[in-house]
Each structure stands twice: as structure tokens, then as C-alpha cells.
């Protein structure tokens, strides 16, 4: 296997050009998948026989929770890549993913709390799954604050990479919290080895929403990374040419 693509990906210019071609496709996929998932999940999927219509919150709660955890794992991967290969683009990816991850953890906690009221009778309980998810949100805040507090870019990148890698220990705790401790939280809906614990009319829209959220993350991440690359590489001639081109297009 050739690794040239991996090294080229480290070049901001190459990444900027490639991501510019990918971005519209991810944006279109996001809109289509989320629109389909919303209509299907809200209006077409049958109500749950126990929870009634409040179960429809699953169509945003589960995708947001998946994404919040996946994004943290991607921070850790970006951290390792940045530390080992000194790739500049890894720090851009890490810094720009963290706010999206924090938003997803926030959505997960908030929709979970609102869903908890009609289902468990309480907005919040200090349960293992919920507490571990709250810690995930604070880890995101930590990475964001650390990245902004250190003015030297290389030191900030190193510190954030280390915090991301150390914090990833929280992810298996979130995943297995429902098995390790007695909990109110229901166990996983999806599993790789078993059939979903849901009828097909319910999990197909959930799968669509999960894919839609992943495409959403990719779209927003590429938007944020492209702006950050323009900022960091502002002194290079290709960025100056690109800025001139973009501004010129607007004034025509």
C-alpha cells in the first residue's frame, strides 16, 4: 500500500483543494438524510407501545450521542497523528472538531433530560451513563479552553493532543456503563452482532438520522477547517491568491 496520500493529506494546500471538492456532496447528503429522517421519525414511524410518542426523541438523542463519542475518539486519533508525525493538519482537525463535539454532547444531555421527564419521572439522575456523558462535555470544554489559553500554537497543539488521548478512557466507560452498573438508562439499541431491539419501521429512520448526523459533522468540520487553514496559512502565496479569488467572485 502506498502511503503518499497520507503525507499529502498533511499538506494544508492539498487538503484545502480536496475538501473543496468534497464539501458540496456532504452538504447535500446531510440535508437529504436529515430531512428524510425527521419526517420518517416524527410522522411515519409507529409510536412505542410503552413510551408512546415521547420515544421519537430517540431520533436525535441517539445520533447526537453517537457523534459526541465518535468525535472524541477522532480528537484522540488526531492527537496521536499530530504527536507522532508532527502533521499540522491534525491540530487543525482537533481544534475544529472539539466545538462540534461539545455541541453534540450538549444536545445528547439536553434531549436525554427532556426525554427522562415523561419516561423516568425526572429530568436528571446521577446515573453512571449520564454522569460519564457530562464528563465528556467537560472534557470537550477542557480541550477548547486549553487550545485558546496557550498562545504558542505548537505548545497548544501538544497540550490538546495529550488531553484528548488521556480523556479517551471515558469513552469505554460511557459505552459499558449500562452493563457495569445498575442504571435507569436503557441498553444499546444497535449492536453489530445482534438484531436491533426494535422493529424495522423504527430503526430504519434511526439509521438514516445517524448517517445524516455523521454527514453533518463532516460538512461543518470541513467548513471550519478550511477557514482555519486560510487563517493559519495567510502568509503563503496560494492563500493570498485564493482569498483574492474568493473576494473577487463576490464583487462581480
Amino acid at each position: 500500500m502506498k502511503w503518499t496520500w497520507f503525507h499529502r493529506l498533511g499538506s494544508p494546500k492539498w487538503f484545502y483543494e480536496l475538501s473543496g471538492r468534497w464539501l458540496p456532496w456532504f452538504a447535500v447528503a446531510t440535508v437529504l438524510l436529515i430531512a428524510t429522517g425527521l419526517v420518517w421519525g416524527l410522522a411515519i414511524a409507529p409510536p412505542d407501545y410503552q413510551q408512546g410518542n415521547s420515544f421519537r426523541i430517540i431520533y436525535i438523542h441517539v445520533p447526537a450521542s453517537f457523534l459526541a463519542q465518535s468525535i472524541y475518539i477522532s480528537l484522540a486519533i488526531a492527537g496521536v497523528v499530530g504527536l507522532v508525525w508532527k502533521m499540522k493538519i491534525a491540530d487543525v482537525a482537533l481544534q475544529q472538531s472539539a466545538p462540534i463535539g461539545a455541541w453534540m454532547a450538549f444536545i445528547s444531555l439536553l434531549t436525554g433530560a427532556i426525554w427522562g421527564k415523561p419516561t423516568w419521572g425526572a429530568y436528571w439522575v446521577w446515573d453512571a451513563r449520564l454522569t460519564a456523558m457530562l464528563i465528556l462535555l467537560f472534557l470537550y470544554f477542557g480541550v477548547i479552553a486549553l487550545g485558546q489559553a496557550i498562545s504558542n500554537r505548537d505548545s497548544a497543539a501538544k497540550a490538546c493532543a495529550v488531553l484528548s488521548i488521556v480523556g479517551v478512557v471515558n469513552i469505554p466507560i460511557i459505552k459499558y456503563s449500562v452493563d457495569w452498573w445498575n442504571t435507569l438508562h436503557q441498553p444499546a439499541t444497535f449492536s453489530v452482532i445482534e438484531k436491533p431491539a426494535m422493529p424495522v419501521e423504527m430503526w430504519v429512520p434511526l439509521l438514516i438520522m445517524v448517517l445524516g448526523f455523521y454527514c453533518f459533522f463532516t460538512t461543518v468540520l470541513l467548513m471550519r477547517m478550511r477557514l482555519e487553514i486560510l487563517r493559519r496559512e495567510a502568509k503563503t502565496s496560494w492563500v493570498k491568491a485564493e482569498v483574492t479569488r474568493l473576494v473577487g467572485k463576490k464583487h462581480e
Partner: protein
Amino acid sequence: MNESIFAFNSFAEFIAMGKHGFYVWVCFGITIAALVLNVALPWLARRRYLNQEARRLRWEAMQ
């Protein structure tokens, strides 16, 4: 039961969501607002940055 593909018989029933209309709509409302914000903020930041850079480049060209 109804014959259509929808889980509700009328728009009023859809809005009511059984007894859970409040919980469902607050969740979906806040989530959609958060998603829109996540797209709008970087987009506005990009516009602001390009305008600022354009001014700087014009000023540099005049020097």
C-alpha cells in the same frame, strides 16, 4: 387505524404527540436550532474574515 403511511390521523394529533407534544417539540426545536447555528457561525466567520483580508491585501497593494 388509518390507511395512510402516517402514524397520526390528523395534523392536530401530530402536534399533540399523545401527551408528549411539549417534550418532543422542545427537543427537536432546540436540536435543529443548534444544528443551524453550527453551520451559520462558521459561514459568517468566513465572510467576515474574507472581507477583512481583502481590505488588508488592498492596503498592502497600495504600499
